[in-house]
């Protein structure tokens, strides 16, 4: 089947019941989305599908034919980091970083849908995503930094 991933058409030979996550990781070499639980409980596997966040660890790849998938590797455009990625770097919003791709994807989906969310909306959007190192306060600061930049423009 053919998949549109990060703007490119990719053809893969897989059983359509294979979870999207493993097609990305094993067939396409895109290991940014992580296996955390395989149960849609932790959010480490999040990717964008037609601009909306989806968890890729259970959803069969067959459901994604003809749809535009963006993984963490596709967030930067032409080598330039997305504003969210830059803010994460500036705020040093990571320790081990295993959860970071999923959380950046969730933040991207939120900000694309709602340009200036309030604090409660930010926290609600990120609440399905777990971080075990406790870097939540830094990630929240990074999001607020992006919103402050937007508000200035």
């Amino acid at each position: 089947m053919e998949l549109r991933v990060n703007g490119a058409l990719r053809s893969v030979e897989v059983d359509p019941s294979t979870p999207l996550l493993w097609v990305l990781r094993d067939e396409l070499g895109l290991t940014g989305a992580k296996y955390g639980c395989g149960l849609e409980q932790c959010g480490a596997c999040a990717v964008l599908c037609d601009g909306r966040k989806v968890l890729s660890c259970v959803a069969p790849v067959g459901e994604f034919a003809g749809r535009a998938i963006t993984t963490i590797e596709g967030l930067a455009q032409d080598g330039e980091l997305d504003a969210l990625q830059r803010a994460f770097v500036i705020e040093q919003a990571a320790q081990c970083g295993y959860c970071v791709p999923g959380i950046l994807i969730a933040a991207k989906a939120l900000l694309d849908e709602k340009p200036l969310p309030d604090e409660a909306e930010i926290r609600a959007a990120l609440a399905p995503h777990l971080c075990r190192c406790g870097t939540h306060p830094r990630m929240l600061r990074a999001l607020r930094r992006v919103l402050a930049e937007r508000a200035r423009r």
Partner: protein
Amino acid sequence: MIPPSLQRNPELDTWLRIEADGSVTVYTGKVELGQGLKTALARIAAEELDVSLARVRVRTADTAAGPDELYTVGSNSLEESGTALRLAAAEARERLLELAAAELGAPASALRVEDGTVRAPGTDRVTSWFALFGGRRFEGKVGGRARPKEPRAHRVLGRPGPRLGMEPLVTGRAVFVQDLRLPGMVHARVVRPPARGARLDSLDDAPVRRMPGVIAVLRDGSFVAVAAERSAQAMAAAERLRRSTRWTGAPELPPRAELYTRMRSARTQSFPVVDGAALDAPVPAREPVAGAARTLRASYTRPFQMHASLGPSAAVAWEQEGALTVWSHSQGVSVLRQALAQALRLPAERLRVVHLEGPGCYGHNGADDVALDAALVARALPGRPVHLQWSRQEEHAWEPYGPAMIMDLEASLDASGSVVDWSHETRSFTHLGRALPLGERVSGLVAAWHRDPPMAPPTPRPVLAPHMGIHRNADPLYAFPRRRVVKHFLDSSPFRTSSLRSLGAYANVFALESFMDELAHAAAADPVEFRLRHLEDPRAREVIRAAAERLGWRAEPRPRGSGRGQGLAFARYKNQKAWCAVALELRVDDASAAIRLERAVVAADAGQIVDPDGLANQLEGGLVQAASWTLKEEVRFERDGLRSVDWDTYPILRFDEVPEVETVLLERPGEPWLGAGEASQGPTAAAIANAVFDATGLRLRDLPFTPERMRAAALDTSPA
């Protein structure tokens, strides 16, 4: 004095190389766990060598290269590896300056160095570390005589700067062990017993062997694994295989409700703790103290808790021509190599263990175990790299837990409200279950217990050294006129247990700092003033004051039951590392009985600061993680088995529950740098308990503080 890491690895070349491409390579025997080790070590090297941070590459532990520093544990890495590297870099600089002096025809003391470029002032003569020595190797040992820079000359240490490796993390290009992909790689999964102690009776692997992509099914006693061309195929095959297995002999667990009573009635080995160390001596009896006006007693408990890494453990193993290479996120590659060699009956020389970053582990989790799993499959499939990752359920079920603990405290106040006598008895299972090399019959690695013939799990033994395991931070830093600290070691746990970040310190500090609060209230004193009254250590006093001040501590007495409260707690980790105070504000939701953390301050004195942002990150993260342990976390189980098998059954703190966290770092230029990665765990738990008391008048002594516990405490009519 030559630091232990240098005594063990004295050659300068082991630590540092000047490369021809204009970079500097630093080797360490420690590993990056998300704690910021690479950034901290790069800063130390950049400072001493006068090169920019961007030039420094840090290579973490590898049994084939660099120093052997055993484990990355105990908040020791800066004190061990950092101190050794600093001396090595200072010596390298001295040697390089001599070369430069000869090259430029000027005395070494007159030369100016900037980003590795060396100039003789007043001349146009220029060279660089790289032109002089790039690609060459230092010879001989680190003498330890070269003097590191004076603090006033520091240009990197203590100053803000970037964390290394952030861009790969935010772009998804960072390669964790979980992500390592090699040509011809096979993906494997294990089918574990349903419980510890269960033995495999039978399995039907014929249908599984016919599944797409399946390459091999391994059975060795009760160790069962399947290898396939792709991860998803291996997972599907493992699930089908699991459904075909029959097991016997899983022992019953004790009923959860009886855990603490059984811990109290179990046989113990008991030791007095003096100056932080357990002694092989009789435990002194409690004796009445003169001048006691009032005596308080309280008991505190902590359940089994998990590391619960966000990424299940993984390893890659590759057997080529009889030699085995293992990529692992272990905390101790050289020790793991020995343990693997014994379990595999291979000479250690034929094994190489390379550290590659993994998801945060927070102590001894499944990282070492999965390395043996992968190695066993790799030995059956020589020539092909084998990637093996645990499932979520496997990680929750098989990682060693932070052990349950009971702390019994008793103290007497004199008429003026000062502590005249103090007793702390701490009771737990081993916190030190690491996979040490233990001979041919005993192994700390899970798969070794399941193979035929099985190796036995290690027999837990008490360790008496200062602040090891159970008695870590049981001995308070306060200047009490009399104290009695006792360690009770229990040898038979219903679960496998080992080191979880801060080990016994988390629960001991929770208990002792909660009890200090109880005593302060009994003495009608402000809890901050009450602590200061009993503390002589000026650096301890300063972090407490700093945390209280930043929070906006209200010292005046106020009515309880408002639903909002402040709490503060303090500890110096192991009484010898960073000083840390946590002060916070919370609200107890009337309807749900849930505790909502609103604002938290963590103040710390970690000596000379190497990387301020890295230090703040560790303190903040420790606070949030400890808040999660304190409010939510408990391994749940019933007679017939474990109940905490995923994130729904073992919930942790989420984005809508974390407080704002502010950090206050005390500057101590020129003082030794001190480990701080575990410093905020204990104070956080007690600060929460103390704030809950301030908010509600209810004293919570049993972790975790779930809404059910809050409601039970509210219904309990006995005095708090």
